[in-house]
Structures are given as C-alpha cells and as structure tokens.
C-alpha cells in the first residue's frame, strides 16, 4: 500500500503531507506555531480546549486543528484576526472558571514575590509552584485576552481540595477538563483509574463517585500529574532545591553507587532477570553481597511507603544476583593494557571495587591487605549467617580473576615505599578498624572484648569462650551482629545495653527484629559507668538515661538520671560503640578533625600528589554500598590523573530504559493494597544455634510478585510536556523566592 500525499496550503506555505495528518501537525511541519493546551503529542487529540482553532477556505466557522485531518488542496489560515479574537474569547471563558486567573492576568505578575499579594487574592486561588512552567500561564501570555472585555470574574466551583490521597494533591477547582490525565490513565497507560465523572459545572476528572484513588486501581505512576497543564494535579513531594527527577524518583538517587533501581525492578517484574542483573552490574561488582547486607537507602526513600510498605529492593537484587545467568559479561568491556601501576591498600569493598574498574580500564593493579583473606569488613566484620563465606569468595575471586595481584598478610605502613616500588598512584582504603573504647574503669578486664575483635576472631575460625550470659553495649549493626553471634556460640542470656531507645538505634530495623526473635533482649536507656571484674565474671554498673534535646546527629541526646545506678552480672561484655581509623604515620596525608583522611570530595584526592583515599577511612564507619561508591569514584579519578576520561559506566543491557518502552502499564485491581512479599527465613528456634544463612531469598514467583508492586515513578518522564522541562529552573527560582 502506497502512501497518499496531500497538498495543503497553510498561511500561504505549501506543503505535502501524508494522508491522515492533522492540520496541527501539518502546520508544525511547515514551521507554523498554533497555540495548544489540551493537545499532548503522546495522546490522541481531544479538541476540548479549542485554542488550536483555524479557518479553512470553503468550510464554515472555526475548526480545531488537532482533530481536523488534512485533505488535498486544503487552504488553511491559522492566524487571521478572526481566529486570534476567537482564541482570546475562548481563553476568557476558560479563565472565568479558573481560580488562578487573578495571578495569570495580574499586572505585577512578572515581579511577584509569591509572599504578599497586593490584590488580596486568597492563597488557595493563587498560582502554584509550577509558575514558570505552567502551560496555562504560557498560553495566556501567548494568546492574550480580548480587548474591551473586563477581566473574567472567577466563579468558585466549590470543590474541596483533596490532600489525603497518597503522593498527589488534587484541586478540582483548577481542572480545565482538558482530558489529558484521563487519556494518559486510560488510553496510554491502560490503567483506567480515572475518568470524567458527572457533567457540567460539577464534572471532574477522577475515580468513580465516592471512591478513593487507592480503591480505583490507580498505580500511582503519577503520569496524570506529569501531563496536567493547570495545577489541578500536583506532586505532594517537596522539591526544595533538588532536581525534579531526584525528588520524584528518590530510590535511584538514594543509592550512593547510582544503581538504576526502577529500571531493574521493572525488568524483574517482566521476568527479565538477566537484564536486571546486568543493570546492577553496570554500577557494582558485588550484587550478591549487597543483596544480603546492603543498608538499602533506596528502600528508605521508596515512594510506595506512602501507600504501604516499600519495595523489597535488596531482596530483589539478591534474587537476580543469586539466580540470573551472567549474560552481562558478554558486554563488559576491557580497555587495552596501560603502563601505569596502581597500588591499593585494603582489600575491602572500596579497594576491590576500585581495583575492578581500574583493571577494566587497563591498569596494572596490586591490592595489599594485612589479613589472611581479602574482603575486609565483608569478610571479618559480618557473620556468616548474614553473608556466607562462599558468596563473598565468589564475587571477590571474580574480581581478582581479571588479573589483579593480591598480596595478603602485607601491612603497608609507608606510602613512599610503594612509590619506590614503582607504583604510579596509591589508593588508601584501609577502613575504620579500631574499636572505640568506653573509657570507664575496668574496661581492660579480660572478659571485656570489643565487637569488632569478637566478630573478627569468629570469622577467623577461632574458638571463643563467652560463657552463658553476655552483655553487648551499643545499638549499631556490629552490636546486633555480636549479640546474635553470642547466641550462636551458646550463650543463654544476651542483653543489648543501649543508651537511647530502640527507635534511635542505627542498626537496620530488620536486624534488630531478627535478634529479638532469636531471644536477644534489649535494655534501653542505660549506659555503663564502671566494670567490676573478678576471675570469671564481671559486674557492670549501669546508670539509667533519659532522652533530651537533639544533638548534632539529630537524635535525642541521652542524659544520665542521677542516683539511678544499678548492677548487672555477665560472663562476657562486648563493647560495640563505634569504630575509628588507625592511620600509620608513614602515610603522610592530612587528616580531618575526626582523625579521618582529608580528601577532595569530588576526586577523593588526598593532600599528597597521586595518593587517593576512599571508604570508611574517609567516611568513618559507613556501609558496603558507600564504600563501593567511593571505589568507583577513586577508579574514575585515578584514570583522569593519567589522562583517561574517567568513564567507568557501562551499558550492560539495552533493556529497561523508559525511552525504549511502550507507554502501556496495564491495570492491576487493588494495586494499592498489594503487600510486601516476606522472604522465607529459618525459624528462630532453628537458626539461633547455628551459622546457617537466616534469610532464604525470593523464589522467581515471589520476586516477580514483589517487583510488580513498584510504582515505576520514572515512567512519567516518558510523557513530560515541553513546558515542564523548564520546571527545574522554575522550582529553583521560586524556592529561592519563597
């Protein structure tokens, strides 16, 4: 079938267009601008706003160019005095129903400070934060109002603004019935949560009468908000100074390593597990480790929390990392070998990540570590029931197999020595290995041990006699790990002593929960004052605390209650109140006030030429994912030092990008109520006496069911109308004004 071509004349310009082209698109092709409001390039035309009207020779009246198909020999006029005047009258009528018309037409509008209003317009009728990007506003500027008519008088439609729906603010008084949101929901996304309800003055775009969005099948993708030109639908999230995407897809930006979370969750929902793994592999070389121990800042940021529980992103990662075939390897690239030799001190997550990417860039890499085996805190600081030894070993060996030299049992005390050995650059990634002490009497007793040493001895396979009753001081992950290990070593009574309450514990909530299930008890709001030891047991004198005003960490400061001292007896006391670095003098690098290595935050360069530092030695005790992020940054900076472009990003699969996807999402009844899939776990009574892995991970069915819950917050950007692209700038300028 051949295309039939039509000759059309628009404002004197002759063009040829294929049969089926609308006058609007033909005009755009001819470079002629016709104002539009309800028209959206990714939705079928509605012809509702009537701003795109044109005159056609031989046809009576005005016609909406978005819906009018071209015919052969058609002569169109888009900008006659009649058309311009009619558009102005249309706009005048539209604004008579629109609350913000006062602002849109205000004489002071270009210099408004958004704080005070000379004309006493009620706050709820003023323009919203979209201002610069408001499509309605730009149309008013473009089309103008008819001369000789008074300002349209706003007639309030009497809708109550809806503020109790998740994620979305709805003000139906501001709805201009353009139908974009409805078409986006029904025809583009295939969800069908909203439609035109009622008619005339009381009509609105929304779910059926007396139905909340949560009960309408809404998937909260917020595409409706994205396409709304008038501010009737707005995001609840506060943008502050954040780029728009950061506020609207927070999971992706919460990840220190920048893993494209929504992309791989979507791929899992589609059953494309290999591609989902590849997306992870684009940013991190430790997906199996992260799938078990990541602090998952992404989950804490997940927007699904506004409906019910966040997506179990960590467990989804674990599922693909454990089960998917590594097809990403076919696309993984290696640059030709380079002359430069890089020394990395510390085979933890930061050091090994840097080694991995530097090796792929062609550098010759040697990693030094003082321990017997590589892995750093992942190897010696995390118990095997959370991170089995072989899982870590697999991922470490894969990195080393790229041709990275590993020198274990080698403690580097001096950077000059490394340079004298012919290395061209050094990365210090030795972590924070020194346990902080309580600083109280009796701490040197042989039955008092610090948490790190305790976990390290265990992970080295040493026998540890801890007795039957164990106290653990601290509320972080090391304290929780130590308490659960103590149970597994045979203690009957394990008590965590914490100076604030459970709510303030820095440890992962799920870890605290698991410890309690296993029988660990928590004595909160207590602090040790002194330790009185005898031969085979110790007595700890504790003082009760109460919570005061927030301190510099933002948590309430614990304050001792005078005279509340009491005593508890333990066989062993484990102290896990934090870690600090131990930096050999021979490094010769500048330190911060906290005793960490001072670096340029953007490059990780230290005070010394060609010496970089990353991970806990820079951050203080942090997390595996933050260490990996530093490893990536260090690799990139070192490459730039030697004239490379520092680009370590890879595209390991073409799948999952929103730009390449159809708009369709489909309907899932009761979507808002889908609950988080709980992973299978060993029973507390079984697991508390052995070191078997506690969490069993998702099955394929569970992974898909969990991934389907994702709101796919990034999909809205498929349908961003042009003016909203200016929104970033608008948000910045208006937030600085307000």
């Amino acid at each position: 079938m051949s295309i039939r071509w039509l000759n059309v004349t628009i404002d004197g310009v002759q063009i040829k267009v294929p049969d089926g082209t609308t006058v609007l698109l033909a005009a755009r092709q001819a470079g002629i601008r016709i104002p539009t409001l309800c028209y959206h390039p990714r939705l079928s035309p509605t012809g509702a706003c009537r701003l795109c009207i044109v005159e056609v020779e031989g046809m009576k009246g005005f016609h909406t160019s978005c819906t009018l198909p071209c015919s052969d020999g058609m002569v169109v006029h888009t900008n006659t005095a009649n058309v311009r005047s009619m558009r102005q009258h249309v706009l005048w009528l539209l604004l008579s129903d629109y609350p913000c018309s006062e602002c849109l037409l205000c004489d002071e509008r270009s210099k408004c400070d958004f704080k005070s209003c000379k004309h006493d317009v009620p706050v709820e009728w003023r323009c919203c934060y979209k201002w610069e990007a408001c499509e309605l506003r730009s149309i008013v500027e473009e089309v103008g109002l008819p001369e000789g008519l008074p300002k349209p008088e706003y007639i309030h439609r009497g809708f109550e603004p809806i503020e109790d729906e998740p994620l979305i603010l709805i003000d139906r008084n501001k709805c201009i019935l353009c139908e974009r949101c409805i078409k986006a929901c029904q025809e583009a996304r295939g969800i069908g949560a909203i439609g035109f309800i009622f008619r005339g003055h009381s009509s609105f775009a929304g779910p059926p009468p007396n139905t909340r969005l949560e009960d309408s099948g809404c998937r909260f993708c917020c595409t409706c908000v994205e396409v709304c030109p008038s501010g009737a639908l707005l995001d609840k999230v506060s943008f502050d100074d954040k780029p728009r995407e950061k506020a609207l897809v927070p999971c992706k930006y919460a990840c220190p390593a920048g893993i494209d979370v929504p992309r791989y969750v979507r791929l899992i929902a589609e059953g494309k597990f290999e591609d989902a793994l590849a997306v992870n592999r684009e940013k991190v070389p430790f997906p199996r480790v992260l799938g078990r121990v990541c602090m998952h800042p992404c989950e804490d940021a997940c927007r699904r929390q506004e409906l019910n529980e966040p997506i179990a992103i960590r467990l989804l990662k674990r599922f693909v990392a454990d089960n998917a075939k590594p097809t990403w390897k076919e696309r993984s690239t290696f640059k030709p070998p380079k002359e430069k030799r890089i020394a990395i001190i510390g085979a933890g997550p930061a050091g090994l990540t840097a080694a991995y990417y530097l090796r792929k860039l062609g550098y010759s890499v040697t990693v030094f570590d003082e321990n017997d085996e590589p892995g750093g805190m992942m190897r010696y600081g995390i118990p095997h029931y959370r991170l089995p030894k072989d899982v870590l070993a697999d991922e470490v060996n894969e990195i080393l197999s790229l041709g990275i030299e590993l020198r274990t049992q080698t403690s580097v005390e001096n950077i000059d020595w490394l340079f004298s050995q012919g290395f061209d650059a050094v990365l210090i990634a030795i972590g924070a290995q020194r346990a902080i002490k309580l600083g109280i009497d009796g701490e040197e007793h042989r039955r008092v041990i610090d948490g790190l040493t305790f976990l390290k001895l265990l992970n080295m396979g040493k026998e540890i006699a801890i007795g039957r009753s164990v106290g653990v001081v601290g509320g972080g992950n090391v304290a929780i790990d130590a308490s659960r290990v103590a149970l597994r070593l045979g203690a009957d009574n394990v008590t965590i002593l914490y100076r604030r309450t459970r709510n303030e514990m820095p440890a992962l909530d799920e870890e605290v929960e698991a410890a309690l299930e296993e029988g660990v008890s928590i004595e909160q709001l207590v602090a040790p004052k002194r330790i009185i030891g005898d031969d085979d047991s110790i007595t700890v004198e504790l003082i009760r605390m109460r919570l005061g005003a927030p301190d510099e960490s933002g948590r309430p400061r614990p304050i001792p209650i005078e005279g509340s001292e009491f005593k508890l007896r333990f066989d062993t006391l484990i102290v896990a109140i934090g870690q600090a670095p131990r930096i050999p003098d021979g490094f010769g690098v500048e330190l911060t006030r906290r005793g960490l290595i001072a670096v340029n935050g953007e490059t990780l360069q230290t005070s010394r030429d060609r010496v970089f530092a990353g991970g806990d030695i820079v951050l203080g005790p942090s997390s595996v994912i933050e260490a990996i992020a530093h490893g990536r940054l260090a690799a990139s900076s070192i490459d730039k030092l030697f004239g490379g472009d520092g680009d370590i990003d890879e595209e390991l699969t073409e799948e999952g990008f929103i730009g390449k996807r159809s708009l369709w999402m489909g309907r899932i009844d009761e979507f808002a109520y889908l609950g988080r899939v709980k992973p299978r776990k060993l029973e507390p009574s079984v697991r508390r006496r052995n070191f078997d892995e506690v969490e069993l991970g998702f099955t394929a069915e569970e992974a898909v069911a969990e991934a389907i819950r994702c709101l796919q917050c990034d999909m809205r950007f498929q349908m961003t109308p042009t003016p909203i692209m200016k929104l970033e700038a608008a948000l910045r300028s208006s937030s600085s004004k307000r």
Partner: protein
Amino acid sequence: MECIDIDALIEKHGRERSSLIPLLQEIQSACGYVPSESIRKVAKWLGIFEVEVYEVLTFYAQFRLVPRGKHTVKICLGTACHMMGGQDIFNYVSQRLGVKAGETTKDGMFTLERVACLGCCGMAPVVAIDDQVHGRQTISSVERLLREHMAKEGKGEQGQT
C-alpha cells in the same frame, strides 16, 4: 443480584460499545438503580474500564447509583412552577426530608427529584409522588402529602432523617 439475572441479561447484548446504554437502562429498570456489581460485569463484557461505565452513568441524569426510595417525590421547577413558587416548595421538602436533589432518605422511604416539566403547567406549582400528580401545591399541602405517605408506611415522624 436479587433484582436481576445479570449474566443472562448481558449475554443478550453484543460486545460493542453501543450496547452500554441499553444494558444500563435494562439493569436500572429491573433494579431501580445500577448496582456496582453489575457495573463490573458490564465493563468486563464490553471490554472497557469500569470507570468508563461510571463516566456514562454519571453523565446522564436518568441513571442512579444508589437504590431508589420507596416513594419518589418529584418537584417541578419548570418555568410556570418556578414562577408559582416551586423553588420554595422544593427547599422546604429538601429540608424536611434532609436530602438534596437526587438523594434518598436514610430510611429508604423517599427519593427527592427536581423535574423540568410534568406537562400540566396550568396546575402550577406541581408535585408528583410516585405516579400521582398534585397541582396547586403549597408548603402545608405538601407537608400533608408527606405525612399521609409516612402514616401509610407506619413511619409517623420517622420519615425525617
């Protein structure tokens, strides 16, 4: 559903969109309103979203989403009745029954409707209860009519919600 064999009814109609309004009309004439359960089935049969059925149902004044009361009180607000004080009568009844136009009292006794003309303008203002048309109404005569209906149902003053 008690009022209708919805599956049998649906299958008598084709699956094209034009079946929607006839289907809804038949459901309403059998049940007095369009129950939400039937909406689900109609949407499924026609392959459209439920919300699209609601779009049609809420557009046309003839459709009801809640059951009709035992008695329908129609108050005419056409030109003649309007001139003769129909609005005052409407306001009175609305307040007396505690419902707005189109609503049904909580006890399910009365549904209040405003209509545009009942075709007997000479008798304005006109009120119709069920199929019985009453002309030249005043607030006190309407009150008497309402009381008669309440008494017949043994409700006394409970008609008020």
